[in-house]
């Protein structure tokens, strides 16, 4: 175990995988100078510019070329810089990467990791702040990963790089500097296995990415009021750990989902709908979602803050759920 940041943990994972497998390589703008958030700092010195490759400002080519390179026996890790810019490469991800294996009847494999730093971060405004993880859960062929801790950013990135299918990998910009214990060596975290961030008997709060921490804080507040919330960190949205959620709801009888993405059409709807479908008899109160309002993300700090899913908002919503039954 060592203490390191979320960003460093990701870097360690990539470096370890690159040492293990010479076919792993990374490509994106400015990687040779460490990447825009320093996530690649020092790697070009170890691996050279062919394997830690700069790229032109060509998101579509970065992703599209990675599809071709993945189909031709390498394992590219592509850096999209901001999840928002991945919107310049959607055909490449959705029509090509996600479908190639199926469409070609299993002839193609696309072992590709698409790193998409996501979320609200310091007045980054409408085009640099989005959380679009929900979109990719809707696309057959894609794995969707949203690590919330340094340890998971190591273990899940390693698993993503080893995946023979394309993985959309969301790191939250607000967590780069978050510190935590990270297991040494070759530890991977499997897809589809949730983490219980906190146990509780009264209410299940499902979350992922940075919002897990807000949910955990909310749970601490609630504990002071006698409400014991169980916080489940999904870690991966596809596949997602239905069994863990169902088991928790069977115990608590109440479900809330909290995420930073816009609530309408977000992945919270999938979780809430699935629980409503499958745990009807267990539910003592209506399921509840908490996400962003359906507005673009504003620049001015107070307007940006207004959209954040905070511990306070989560606690308030949780109280309402508990008091409804």
């Amino acid at each position, binding site marked *: 175990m060592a203490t390191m940041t979320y960003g460093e943990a990701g870097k360690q994972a990539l470096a370890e995988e690159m040492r293990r497998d010479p076919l792993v390589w990374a490509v994106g703008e400015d990687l040779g100078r460490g990447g825009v958030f320093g996530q690649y700092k020092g790697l070009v010195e170890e691996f050279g510019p062919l394997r830690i490759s700069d790229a032109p400002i060509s998101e579509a080519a970065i992703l599209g070329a990675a599809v071709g390179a993945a189909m031709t026996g390498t394992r590219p890790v592509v850096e999209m810089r901001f999840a928002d810019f991945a919107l310049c490469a959607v055909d490449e991800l959705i029509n090509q990467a996600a479908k190639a*294996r199926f*469409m070609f009847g299993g002839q193609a494999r696309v072992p590709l990791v698409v790193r998409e730093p996501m979320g609200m971060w310091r007045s980054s405004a409408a085009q640099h702040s989005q959380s679009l993880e929900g979109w990719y859960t809707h696309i057959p062929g894609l794995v969707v990963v949203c690590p919330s801790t340094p340890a998971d950013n190591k273990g899940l990135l390693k698993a993503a790089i080893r995946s023979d299918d394309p993985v959309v990998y969301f790191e939250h910009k607000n967590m780069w500097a978050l510190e935590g214990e990270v297991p040494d060596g070759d530890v991977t975290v499997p897809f589809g296995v949730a983490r219980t961030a906190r146990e509780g008997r009264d209410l299940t709060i499902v979350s992922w990415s940075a919002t897990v921490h807000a949910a955990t804080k909310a749970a601490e507040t609630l504990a002071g009021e006698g409400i014991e919330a169980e916080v489940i960190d999904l870690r991966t949205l596809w596949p997602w750990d239905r069994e863990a959620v169902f088991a928790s709801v069977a115990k608590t009888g109440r479900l809330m989902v909290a995420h930073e993405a816009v609530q309408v059409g977000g992945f919270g709807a999938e979780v809430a709908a699935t629980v409503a479908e499958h745990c009807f008899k267990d539910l003592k109160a209506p399921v509840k979602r908490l996400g962003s309002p359906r507005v673009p993300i504003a620049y001015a700090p107070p307007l940006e803050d207004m959209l954040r899913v905070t511990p306070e908002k989560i606690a308030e919503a949780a109280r309402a759920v508990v008091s409804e039954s």
Partner: protein
Amino acid sequence: MPVPATQVPRNLDIDRLLSHHRLMWRIRAFEEAALQANTEKLVLGAIHPSIGQEAIAVGVCCNLNRDDILSSTHRGHGHTLAKGADATAMMRELLGREGGTSHGKGGSMHIADFEVGMLGANGVVAANIHITAGAAHAIRLRGENRVACSIFGDGAINRGPFLEGLNWAKVFELPALFVCEDNGFASTTRTAAMTGGPGPAARAEALGVPAVEVDGNDVMAVDEAAREAVAAIRAGGGPRFIVAKTYRLTGHTAADAAPYRPKDEVDEAWRHEPIARLAQVLADAGVKGAVLAGHERDAREEMDAVYADAKAAPWPPLSRGYEDVQDAGDPRQGAF
């Protein structure tokens, strides 16, 4: 009467040209069978025939090795055959049958045979340009001496991937060959009307990719241009670009009667179609008409049999619909 040897230009490799002629006929006959399948409603999805463009498929692919990579467009049957794919498996794929190259899951627009390095036709215009750039990138990373080739239409040069993909190949000096089949049309639109500037070659050159223009209905010219380009690429010279001028003798799809172009124009184009042109060269070089007619007959017989086989082939089992989606997560209804 044997043709006097003097009538044969010295540099004609008759065997190579005979093989081109045979392959061009196989492509034409395959396309005709595919059109027939469309008429008989055994293919419901769109079929984009490459009739009239066979010389490009053949002239380019005869310069690629089996382990070289090819990616293609919606109009990809000819390229796939020329790269060495099995016609029987291809026709089964077009009819959506078990035993198809992709178990019937891709169909005409996604025809692929990874065994022969054919990484797929593509339903999205120009998308294969990026894929080829990436395949070439992988080849370079792996230190191999292979070439990745992308064939696309003149309409594709108006999409971003043309710029991004060629720039990519140039910046990384990748072993990539880009071939533009300039048939004058993008679907029902004359591409000239929607294309600014002097054309595909100038665009490639402006991206640093050396370009040549050839008569795409002259298989010898295409063969030669591709040979030079592939040699330069294999020698480490970075990407190359070929524009091959041709004409799409059919409608855009099997369903398109192409009323938007005058009959005269099409008739004129038929007078320059590549198979007859090559046949003339071969005849002039003393090859017997019977030999050439034999190629046509053999090709038709082969493709008739191929079509009959596909018609008789079973549907893929329904389980195929859930296979090869992804390793993680159960995609089935009820599993979520």
